[in-house]
């Protein structure tokens, strides 16, 4: 089957027909059976097939644009959960691409990556909600800030997270690989504990209760919709709006990543990863390059953090645990360290596993339990109620990490230039 598909995909005309057909069929299926998990998974797989298909560049871009820009939102209006999954996938793709710079290109294992995401999220959450009014006088500004500020804060989030990355990086980048990993882990925990406890003496973060409501970006395209005669409620518009915002940011992130990869900076990073000593002797400014990697990775997370807080309207420290950091790490590892398509694929697969497959399994098991189905003489109604497959994301991450390290450390879609795994010089 795989052989067959691979040979077909190499032949341009066949490839085009095959991927167009697959996208069309799966989209039609997903639209018709809007509650079917399988149909949506097939739709996602068809986009993957499109990636592997060999065809002219413009046709590929056109098809991708069609699938992601038109079909996906359309499916989203039929089943809102599809769009939610797609948006989450986008968020994690951006995070994985950011971590990919730090871990994959520069070879620095960062176990506290989610801290930068948290920094971005809190940057907007504090000022985009009444929270800032609690510690800033009214003469400064009236909080929450208006929705139009969101776009400024998107940039601000990038800068704040990038700066945090530099501040953290400065003292720790001299450390050897495994110590660096533990220090970043500690830093991630420190940020989370701070977010949890900085509700006193001055209430910055509102502690474990979290911050809400956070202002969403304005629907600036409203007049356009009115002209077109589309009258949609904000509750319908916002998911699509956020989906496109995420898509836009992911596009920018991919572009930046691709430009970086082949620039002298990207090559310097890879040189550092392969052999620090050799890199120094070739005249690469080690500390500056490592700092740049940290700052770049952090800034992507910062931007996504700002968007995440606006999308969720509510954030609390629970969204920024060690589990999230490892989740993003396992996406990068699964796809292939240092590989951009790898990071995208890894993020998609892991997010879909978590959000759809595990949850679907939970629901299915519950249905079976409630129906009292008997399998091999065992009545499923007796199944323990605490058994919820949806809660086993750690197991997924764990299995991914172990298996990939043992059997395929270069990942599913290895980077082209990858010769050796992360070395520590």
């Amino acid at each position: 089957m795989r052989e067959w598909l691979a040979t077909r995909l190499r032949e341009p005309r066949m490839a085009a027909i095959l991927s167009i057909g697959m996208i069309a069929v799966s989209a039609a299926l997903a639209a018709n059976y809007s509650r079917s998990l399988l149909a949506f998974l097939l739709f996602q797989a068809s986009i993957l097939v499109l990636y592997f298909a060999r065809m002219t560049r413009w046709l590929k871009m056109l098809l991708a644009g069609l699938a992601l820009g038109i079909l996906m939102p359309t499916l989203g209006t039929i089943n809102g959960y599809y769009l939610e999954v797609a948006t989450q996938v986008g968020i994690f793709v951006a995070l994985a691409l950011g971590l990919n710079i730090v871990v994959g290109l520069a070879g620095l294992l960062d176990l506290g990556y989610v801290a930068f995401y948290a920094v971005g999220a809190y940057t907007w959450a504090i000022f985009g909600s009444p929270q800032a009014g609690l510690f800033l006088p009214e003469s400064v500004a009236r909080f929450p800030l208006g929705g139009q500020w969101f776009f400024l804060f998107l940039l601000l989030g990038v800068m704040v997270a990038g700066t945090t990355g530099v501040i953290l990086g400065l003292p720790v980048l001299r450390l050897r690989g495994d110590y660096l990993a533990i220090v970043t882990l500690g830093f991630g925990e420190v940020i989370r504990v701070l977010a949890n406890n900085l509700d006193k003496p001055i209430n910055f973060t509102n502690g474990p209760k979290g911050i809400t409501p956070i202002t969403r970006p304005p629907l600036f395209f409203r007049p356009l919709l009115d002209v077109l005669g589309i009258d949609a409620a904000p509750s319908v518009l916002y998911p699509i709006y956020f989906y496109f915002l995420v898509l836009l940011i992911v596009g920018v992130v991919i572009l930046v990543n691709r430009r970086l990869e082949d620039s002298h900076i990207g090559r310097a990073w890879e040189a550092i990863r392969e052999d620090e000593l050799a890199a120094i002797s070739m005249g690469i400014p080690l500390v500056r390059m490592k700092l740049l990697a940290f700052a770049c990775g952090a800034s992507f997370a910062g931007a996504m953090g700002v968007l995440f807080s606006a999308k969720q309207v509510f954030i609390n420290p629970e969204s920024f645990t060690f589990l999230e950091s490892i989740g993003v790490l396992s996406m990068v590892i699964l796809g292939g360290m240092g590989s951009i398509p790898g990071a995208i694929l890894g993020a998609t697969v892991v997010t879909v596993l978590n959000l759809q497959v595990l949850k679907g399994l939970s629901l299915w098991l519950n249905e079976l339990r409630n129906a009292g189905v008997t399998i091999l003489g065992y009545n499923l109604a007796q199944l323990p109620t605490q058994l919820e497959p949806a809660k086993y994301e750690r197991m997924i991450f764990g299995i991914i990490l172990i298996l990939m390290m043992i059997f395929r450390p270069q990942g599913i879609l290895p980077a082209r230039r990858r010769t050796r795994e992360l070395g520590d010089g």
Partner: protein
Amino acid sequence: MDIPLMIGIFPQVVLDGLVLGFMYALIALGYTMVYGVLEFINFAHSEIFVVGAFVGVEILLGLKARGVLGNLSPFLVLILLLLAGMLVSGLLAAAVERVAYRPLRNAPRLIPLISAIGVSFFLQDAVRLFESLWRNAFNLVYPTMDQLNLRFQLTETIDISTRSLVVIIAALGMLLLLHLLVNRTKIGKAMRAVAEDQATASLMGINVNRIISLTFLIGGAMGGAAGVLFGVQYSLINPYTGFIPGLKAFTAAVLGGIGNITGAMMGGLVLGLLEAFAASYLSLLTNGAFGAEYKDIFAFSILILILIFRPKGLMGEVVRERA
């Protein structure tokens, strides 16, 4: 600031800190022994520790269900728990090494570390899965044994419970045994040789793989014992309990100079005491602005500072007595 109160609680704080410190020291041994031999952070050690705690609670609940818990001497039960916990955790640690680390022994440093993180996450949910199927609950409470809750009144204001004493005595005993094992026996000598230079050690007729397995077995057993003692002391456990103590024990190992057994013990005690002081005095010193909830930050900050300024640890200059 309430100076008399601060002086009054001082001995009690020291006692609490010591109990905590010995617990950290026991866990830290697992990190430090493995690091000494393989220069590898066994990230899954915190789950080895949790498994020990779960073995203990399962035995206790089993005894309780049969109604024999009240009739047995609590100290006998405790020894049984410790042995069982050590056995299971030790074997698990050795098995994990065999499956997830040995194939990666010659890979670059970060590869086995990532695998270890995977093992850690996998084991957390594996314990959860097992307990969910077996008991339909994974937040478990250690059944109390009355005799262990007796408190000795040392002075008017200071007291110590039997279980705290048990923790201190058991930890001291095990540390002593380990010290003897590493420094006075042939196996210990082999371990030190493997730590020094694997290739040469194997030329001298030492079975390196066996010694490494043994190192994991012993380190895991110490972790299992610490798990049982943790359960007895603090009662509440769940599959994710191990993360924070594990991270702190690693801090203790680094603080004492990783790879150094005496260092791990000292590091554990120092960290335990510091944390107890932070928990009790931080809010008194800052008039309630910062409370006990910052004690974790305190530990992590120590870790970060030590790694940055003195990665060799406090005892780093002592001739390395590596296990």
